[in-house]
């Protein structure tokens, strides 16, 4: 994976740039010692690393504005960073960039239960947004697996999803407003406690723009009343195809479970060894969760069991208690950790039409054999968001490259099946060079025009999303030495 060469002119002006930033920030909010900037050399995509020129940790929108104004004047690229949990390299620095971390901005600014919103600084973690409102019986719906650590800023940048978005939608469907600092340091307010835009839906454009259009410092988020209860049902099947058909039948029957999770045999075994959740040894496992009162849950699960019965399940287990529910989810939620115990892995994120599940799973199996690398599948089946985990040995020469090539083939398969490269993790640097598999040049041209308007000098989060040759004419020309 190629990154642009750092601009030597910027590196040579480091002292001046640091001095200007130091005037605007407290001493402990500016890191430029190479021994310390190393802590920011990568995010959760650890295969790629590059220490930045400097790191700033502002505490307010005003400080973010001051930093961006200076970087704009100095023509220094800026890489916004939430909690650094991106699996796509969304916060990977370049050597000539300043990392702008929002982790210190984690206050709750306003909670309003009558109007059902919360306003927070975006360094706040996803789970602690719910934590701020759960005593009143409310919650914030998007729940990415990294929710304990990931920040709202990153959720907005990547338009994060989670296990429960089949019913509640992803970040963009739950984001009501944002305070955005543009690259020139100007601050704009988008949306608020009211619904929908009066003009162009710029909030909808900012969400999912991977930190390339502006830095979101404050967000107004929709909060919802918690359901009366929720209960999962675990079902085991003799093949991936049968499990996929069962998912489709559940949806066609007019049921809308809050989550439908799918695991295949390699993943089931790893999770069982790791979490001892009592999973059966079957080819494919579905976890279906429904919400409501006890009677409502009984009725919905009864219908789902009837549908499942027509697919001859090997196992059908309804949770009988909160402990059993927790155990069923514990296995699923520890999937990535469990796989990490036994292998290095690359986690993919392609999304496909639900109807294509059996065919794509078979295609992944064929590719896995052809490459000689194991693939475990765990994913959100209700919305077709797959997470194939490619297992490899990072210490074996050439295996990472082989695993990446397999990943590219799997994602291309997803696109060919009518799907997309990434459902919730974002393009970042990881899938940047695959964009042409999904989008024609004019499609990317239209997207890049949006960046031209928000960030005319292309300084924000450089070398992400668009293939380097596609964006070459727009990116800053290297200053002559």
């Amino acid at each position, binding site marked *: 994976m190629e990154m642009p060469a750092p601009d030597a002119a910027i590196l040579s002006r480091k002292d001046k740039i640091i001095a200007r930033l130091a005037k605007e920030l407290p001493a402990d909010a500016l890191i430029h010692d190479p021994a310390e900037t190393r802590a920011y050399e990568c995010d959760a995509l650890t295969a790629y690393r590059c220490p930045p020129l400097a790191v700033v940790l502002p505490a307010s929108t005003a400080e973010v504005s001051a930093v961006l104004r200076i970087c704009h004047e100095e023509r220094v690229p800026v890489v916004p960073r939430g909690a650094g949990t991106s699996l796509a390299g969304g916060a990977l620095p370049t050597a000539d960039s300043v990392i702008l971390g929002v982790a210190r901005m984690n206050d709750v600014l306003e909670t309003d*239960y*009558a*109007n059902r919103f919360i306003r927070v600084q975006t360094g706040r973690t996803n789970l602690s947004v719910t934590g701020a409102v759960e005593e009143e019986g409310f919650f914030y719906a998007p729940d990415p697996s990294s929710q304990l650590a990931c920040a709202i800023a990153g959720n907005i940048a990547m*338009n994060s999803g989670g296990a429960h*978005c089949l019913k509640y*939608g*992803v970040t963009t*469907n739950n984001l009501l407003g944002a305070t955005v600092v543009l690259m020139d340091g100007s601050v*704009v*307010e*988008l949306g*608020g*406690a*009211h*619904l*929908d835009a*009066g*003009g162009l839906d*710029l909030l*909808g*454009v900012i*969400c999912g723009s991977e930190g390339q259009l502006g830095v979101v410092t404050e967000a107004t988020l929709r909060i919802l*009343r918690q359901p*009366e209860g929720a209960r999962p049902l675990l079902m085991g099947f003799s093949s991936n195809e049968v499990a996929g058909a069962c998912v*489709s*039948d559940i*949806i*066609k029957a*007019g*049921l809308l479970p809050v989550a439908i999770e799918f695991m295949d045999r390699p993943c089931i075994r790893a999770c069982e060894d790791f979490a001892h959740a009592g999973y059966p040894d079957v080819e494919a496992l579905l976890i279906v969760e429904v919400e409501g009162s006890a*009677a*409502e849950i009984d*009725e919905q699960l009864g219908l789902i069991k009837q549908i499942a019965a027509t697919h001859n399940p090997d196992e059908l287990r309804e949770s009988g208690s909160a402990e059993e529910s927790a155990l069923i989810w514990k296995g699923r939620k520890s999937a990535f950790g469990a796989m990490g115990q036994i292998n290095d892995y690359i986690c993919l994120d392609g999304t496909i*039409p*639900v*109807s294509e599940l059996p065919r794509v799973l078979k295609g992944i199996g064929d590719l896995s054999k052809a490459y000689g690398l194991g693939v475990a599948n765990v994913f959100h089946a209700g919305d*077709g968001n797959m997470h194939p985990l490619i297992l490899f040995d990072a210490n074996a020469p050439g295996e990472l490259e082989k695993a990446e090539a397999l990943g590219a083939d799997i994602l291309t398969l997803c696109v060919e099946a*009518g*799907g*997309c*490269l990434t*459902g*919730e*993790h*974002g393009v970042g640097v990881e*899938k940047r060079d695959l*964009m042409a598999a*999904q*989008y*024609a040049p*004019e*499609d990317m*041209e*239209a*997207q890049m*025009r949006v*960046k*031209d*308007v*928000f960030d005319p000098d292309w300084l924000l989060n450089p070398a992400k999303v668009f293939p380097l040759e596609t964006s070459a004419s727009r990116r800053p020309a290297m200053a002559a030495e």
Partner: protein
Amino acid sequence: MMTPETEEALAEAVRAARDPFRIQGGGTRPVGRPVTGAALGTAGLSGVRLYEPGALTMVAGAGTPLAEIEAALAAEGQRLAFEPMDHRGLLGTEGTPTIGGAAAANVSGPRRISVGACRDFLLGLRFVDGTGAVVKNGGRVMKNVTGYDLVKLMAGSHGTLGVLTEVSFKVLPAPAAAATLTIRGLSDAAAVAVLARALGSPFEVTGAAHRPLGAAGAPETLIRIEGFESSVAYRARRLSALLGDAGAVAVETDPDRVAETWTGVRDVADFHGRAGDVWRLSVKPGDAPALAERLGAEALLYDWGGGLVWALIPEGTDARAALGTYAGHATLVRASAETRARIPPFQPEVPALARISAGLRAKFDPKGLFNPGLTG
């Protein structure tokens, strides 16, 4: 009117064009500043191209009539959950509402408060930009963060950035049963407070409206629940108990009457056939009653728990002047061409945002071909 039969023919027409177009789907929603230009319609780009009930997705040409889409969905027990408003009764227009028109104007109904707006259901689209290039964005899958979300940019852009040619969208199962809970006699402020309590309950309210002048000329506060029959019965019981201190709660479960009530809210039936300008306010729900009072309106309708206010006010009045400063926006939906030329129908943006919007229009429509001046 020019109605190209293919996307390529449309692109060709745009590439050859020197003079502006007035873009329209079914022509039922002439909102915005009056536009002069040759009419360019999408009626030739019609038809459901793909429908997968098991995947809850449909792809259709932009000019496909909503009625055709709704009929295809109903045959599979599904529906457009964002419940797009039919503007014909309010605006006195004729023609056929289309899916592309609903997308271009981001048209949603009462269920927006629970399931989201039209823009939340759009999965992907194709459009012809002002240079005549055919652009696609998004796709037909539920979750897609590949590249920037131009679907949101196009939704609600009123044809000023491009001409939609195809849209793909998420659909949802139609529920087996529904009920309307009605409390009569509440003031606007008391009604909005009751609706907030209902929406803040775990009982999944899918409609929350207040008609200050209901069927019998008395105020009606309306709450809708939908789902399995036993579930609707249970939730109606629990909500009646929860809200009973505000007044007697009447429960209607006849499907036709429930549908009629909410179609009336969706289409602002209370204003049909009445003279005056119609304004549409999007506000923080709790602010709605006080803001509405500033308008001195002849008639009001609150939807979205108060977050959406429809106001009928005397012709030629600038509602924004009466509203003063508040968080939200106001759109002049119905007025004479003279009034719409004088008072900006769309909420003027602060300079920083106006610059961005103008920049985007200049990039997507450099020759100024699409609905020039509509939103200005």
